[in-house]
């Protein structure tokens, strides 16, 4: 072996499309469905919230591994997913901060918080996976030769190239 590197994930604002793709993959795999448009503005979503009835618990989790920028990076964006009575909104504000908001009827705040934290972790893991596959293909001549997921939900990849 030559060396071992450990890298902490950091979501960069320009990679929002990768977050969208990662979130969709994770939530659909967990049985959620995207609500109407995949991405819509927060202003539109607020109107929808006001028209809703019933008692709903709601928790919001700010994703920590995000590179925040001092200037605005464009409009706020939000993805909405639903599974039975649970709704998940993943949003990005104008400074690039990412939030996961989970709401639902018949669930305690603790349950919703646990679900939100699990989702946030899975989205980051999927984001890292997508980034690695895409960028390593683009920037190196290494090929993905193996991939697997273990019982602890770690993703394992093996990339290989041949030196002349």
């Amino acid at each position, binding site marked *: 072996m*030559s060396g*071992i590197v*450990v890298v*902490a994930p*950091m979501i960069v604002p320009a990679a929002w499309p990768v977050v969208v793709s990662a979130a969709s993959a994770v939530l659909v795999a967990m049985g959620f469905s995207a609500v109407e448009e995949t991405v819509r503005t927060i202003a539109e979503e607020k109107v929808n919230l006001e028209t809703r009835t019933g008692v709903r618990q709601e928790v919001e989790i700010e994703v920590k*591994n995000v590179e925040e920028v001092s200037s605005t990076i464009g409009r706020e964006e939000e993805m909405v997913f639903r599974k039975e009575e649970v709704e998940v909104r993943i949003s990005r504000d104008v400074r690039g901060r990412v939030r996961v908001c989970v709401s639902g009827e018949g669930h305690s705040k603790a349950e919703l918080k646990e679900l939100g934290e699990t989702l946030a972790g899975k989205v980051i893991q999927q984001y890292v996976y997508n980034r690695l596959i895409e960028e390593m293909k683009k920037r190196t001549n290494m090929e993905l030769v193996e991939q697997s997921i273990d019982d602890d939900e770690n993703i394992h990849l093996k990339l290989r190239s041949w*030196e002349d």
Partner: protein
Amino acid sequence: MAAREIIIEISPEGVVRGDISGFGGKNCREMAKLLAEIVGEEVSFDPNSEYFQGEVHLGVDVNTDEH
């Protein structure tokens, strides 16, 4: 031909551990930097014995005593 390999583990929190082999020296370090650039921020890098293969290290003793 020799194989160059990277074995990557992505934890459920997204932390990446990359085991880089077959590169040697400077190329290994460059690959580690590329992984960090793609994923986020480098937490640590531990080179091992193979890391130093292919690099020439010269040790020179200079005796400045004049007789």
